[in-house]
């Protein structure tokens, strides 16, 4: 009986840790800041009665340990795939709030998080490509382009965003897909200007490239650095820089060819 109780207790500890780790995993994979991931995990642990917990989060992995009467338990999970899904960040955040209010016990919280994890992305790929296309046109106007270039920028921006997604499906190297997308944008823009469909090559390219700009990475890098997460901050900054470099070299190839 004693041993069974003990096992039951240990099981519960692990379940609680799984809830924390799943919450952290979803947040990190969806593009939350590092300090928010650590904070959320430690809060959940605290609300489930763990006085001391430690979390160490980098963009590629999470280490989490809790201190109880038994020896400290530690788990490590690897994060290999990162996308941007701000809705999931928000959903996990509100789940963590509900846990803090005592509304959810461990199995309930685990089930809810599992559902969030499996959820599809909020918008279909078509919607996102359309959004990228329209944003490109709007950026052209924001950068003092002329209305004559609006339609070319919309089309080229949409195709550029679509190619980053599709090339990434084929080749799992992020920088290559960004390079290819920039190349597509540059070639199409040059083609549009040559055939007389567009007027200002520079403006069309700048507008169409905007959906590829690593805005989330830049923001997160700065916010992580401020919060004192130097490893995450620097690695996100490096990723943002590489993305910018990939886009730049894609366009540079086209400019050199002209």
């Amino acid at each position, binding site marked *: 009986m004693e041993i069974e109780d003990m096992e039951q207790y240990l099981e519960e500890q692990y379940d609680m840790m799984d809830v924390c780790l799943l919450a952290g995993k979803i947040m990190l994979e969806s*593009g939350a800041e590092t300090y928010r991931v650590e904070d959320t995990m430690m809060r959940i642990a605290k609300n489930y009665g763990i006085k001391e917990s430690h979390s160490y989060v980098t963009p590629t992995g999470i280490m989490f340990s809790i201190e109880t009467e038994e020896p400290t338990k530690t788990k490590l999970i690897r994060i290999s795939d990162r996308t941007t899904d701000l809705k999931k960040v928000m959903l996990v955040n509100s789940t963590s709030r509900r846990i803090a209010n005592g509304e959810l016990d461990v199995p309930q919280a685990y089930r809810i998080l599992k559902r969030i994890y499996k959820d599809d992305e909020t918008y279909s790929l078509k919607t996102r490509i359309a959004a990228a296309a329209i944003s490109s046109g709007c950026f052209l106007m924001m950068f003092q382009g002329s209305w004559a270039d609006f339609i070319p920028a919309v089309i080229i921006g949409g195709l550029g965003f679509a190619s980053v997604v599709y090339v990434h499906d084929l080749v799992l190297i992020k920088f290559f897909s960004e390079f290819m997308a920039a190349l597509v944008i540059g070639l199409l823009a040059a083609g549009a200007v040559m055939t007389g469909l567009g007027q200002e090559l520079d403006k069309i390219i700048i507008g169409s*490239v905007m959906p590829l700009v690593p805005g989330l990475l830049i923001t997160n890098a700065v916010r992580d650095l401020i919060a004192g997460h130097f490893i995450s901050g620097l690695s996100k900054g490096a990723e943002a820089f590489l993305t910018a470099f990939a886009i730049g070299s894609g366009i540079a190839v086209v400019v050199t060819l002209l």
Partner: protein
Amino acid sequence: MDILIQTVTSFIAAAGFGIIFNAPKEALWKCGLVGMLGWMAFFILTLQGIGEVPSTVAAAFMIAVISQVFSRVYKAPVIIYIVSGIIPLVPGGTAYNAMRSFVTNDYNMALSYAAKAFMVSGSIAMGIVLSEVISQIMKQSRLKRIG
């Protein structure tokens, strides 16, 4: 007329970025609003002849403050609102010109463009830092009042 076009397009562009980043549907208009206000701040300041760097600091600061307010009011992570607002400020045009000058072997122009792009990126960071400082001070003063 120009200002009207800028207002409308910046709203749509920022909301579009909300969709690209899978922001929740009910947050889209807030993303658009944050982006619009930030871009208008930048646009009007540069129109007044104020340099690009101080204008970017002011705009980034404004975006970050509004995002902090939204995040408090709607109890959602601040990152949802801040990202779409920051993107229009990213010095894409300057970086493009720098790259173009490098490719055409005009290193003097390239370096000056690159330095400018670097400064503007730094100003975005500066604006975010400033707003973070203010939000921390606000938090601390509230704690003191309670305690």
